[in-house]
């Protein structure tokens, strides 16, 4: 893995905007093509293998949590447990997830699994691929995200309720809308009937006891780019349990277990010999160098990095009320003041590609940049 500095394309902003990528720059650049990461094929195959193996281990860990009733570790309300278990045993449709990896000194370690609402899908699947077509068409990329999304939506069609597949996200956020609309684009190409409804516009029919969209069409299947921990605590959350349509929510609610950082100590307890896992615990004091993470948090908020019992870095935020876990410190590699984090995608049940986000510090936060990659 190497970081190569290059000149950005002339008018790169126009090039990415033509793809519908409108959030390439906020206060600071987010899409950064002044560099790229180069991987050997062996390295890519290693990342792909690790992704496939970890996905299997994660499924085993979900079953373990259910068998041993460990929900309290995840701060999951009791009322939702039967529903979560039903979505697991009935195998409700699931489309994707993203592992975050640290790759350093030929070692790959999983830092966390964004199993419920991973973003940067469009950048990874589309924007970096078109960058490569301009930069060096003859080169390849670890990227079959687009093809796998279409293929898996096609496969899932038989398992959905008949009718429309709705897509939902928050209003007023171009990043969320882009990710959601991209997934919808792939579903349309797979032949599904789709419709967008913003999450704030979803209605609850008090008489018929079903969710409805803005045109009052009942919801049967809905992809949501909106985390389960928010959904179940919202005012309408309890209606999910009484919904007469038994709507398929995608990702399904059992993903609440995998997207929660409480899964990290459980994975470590179950699979201590796995080379891709870092020691992790619910209790403080078992590690000398560690990262303290809230079980529920987003974008690197409320993270504390400790070396020899001394805090070396800390981020602010509003998370932590549900508890913390402690994961052995395996700091990101440095390339001239840049710290890359590999996001490795699982689409359907298979590894599908990767995207790299780069930060200027050891904690990847909401100021990180997306940097493209290619295979040497």
């Amino acid at each position, binding site marked *: 893995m190497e970081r190569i500095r290059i000149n950005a394309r002339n008018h790169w902003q126009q090039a990415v905007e033509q*793809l519908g990528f409108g959030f390439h720059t906020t206060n600071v650049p987010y899409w950064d093509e002044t560099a790229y990461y180069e991987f050997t094929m062996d390295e890519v195959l290693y990342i792909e293998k690790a992704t496939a193996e970890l996905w299997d281990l994660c499924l085993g860990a979900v079953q373990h949590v259910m068998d041993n009733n460990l929900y309290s570790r995840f701060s999951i309300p009791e009322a939702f447990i039967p529903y979560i278990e039903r979505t697991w045993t009935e195998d409700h449709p699931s489309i994707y997830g993203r592992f975050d990896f640290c790759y350093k000194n030929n070692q790959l370690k999983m830092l966390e699994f964004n199993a419920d609402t991973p973003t940067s899908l469009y950048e990874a699947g589309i924007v970096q691929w078109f960058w490569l077509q301009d930069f060096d068409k003859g080169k390849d990329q670890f990227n*079959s995200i687009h093809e796998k999304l279409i293929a898996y939506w096609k496969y899932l069609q038989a398992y959905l309720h008949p009718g429309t597949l709705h897509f939902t996200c928050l209003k007023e956020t*171009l990043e969320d*809308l882009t990710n959601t609309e991209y997934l919808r684009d792939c579903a349309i190409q797979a032949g599904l009937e789709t419709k967008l409804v913003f999450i704030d516009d979803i209605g609850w029919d008090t008489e018929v006891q079903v969710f409805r969209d*803005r045109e*009052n069409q009942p919801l049967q299947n809905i992809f949501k780019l909106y985390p389960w921990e928010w959904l179940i605590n*919202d*005012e309408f959350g309890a209606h999910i349990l009484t919904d007469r349509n038994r709507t398929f929510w995608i990702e399904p609610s059992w993903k609440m277990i995998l997207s929660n950082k409480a899964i990290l100590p459980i994975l470590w307890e179950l699979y201590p010999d796995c080379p891709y896992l870092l020691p992790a615990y619910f209790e403080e004091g078992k590690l000398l160098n560690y990262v303290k993470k809230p079980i529920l948090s987003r974008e690197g908020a409320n993270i504390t990095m400790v070396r020899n019992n001394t805090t070396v870095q800390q981020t602010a935020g509003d998370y932590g009320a549900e508890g913390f876990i402690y994961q052995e410190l395996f700091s990101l590699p440095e390339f001239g003041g840049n710290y890359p984090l590999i996001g490795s995608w699982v689409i359907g049940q298979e590894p599908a590609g990767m995207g790299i986000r780069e930060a200027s510090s050891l904690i990847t936060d909401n100021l990180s940049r997306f940097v493209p990659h290619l295979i040497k």
Partner: protein
Amino acid sequence: MKKSKHIQLLLITAVLASCNRPGKQPDWQSGNKTYIRSDSTAPYTTVHHYYHGGGIGNALLWYYAFRPYGHYYNGYYQRAGYYSDAIHESSNIGSNTFKSTVIRGGFGRGFSVSS
């Protein structure tokens, strides 16, 4: 690694590129008043406008200016009227009873789920 060399996007480029265009400054400030209602059972009121600073806000405001509502009966959709976020509540609801069985706004918090 790449399964196909051809990528087609049906929906996203057109929709999202339009969201990203700088919004036209609204004419609402010109002093002309518009009286409007979304339901024939509701009274007219002047239009009030909320401006979110351009970009996506404007695009979506345009898209959602008037959303049809209705219901499904025996498998057929019957349109009953329109909603609009841009007009006063009293001009939206009227006395239409169908609207009252569906409540909204019970989901949604935060600014982005970015992760």
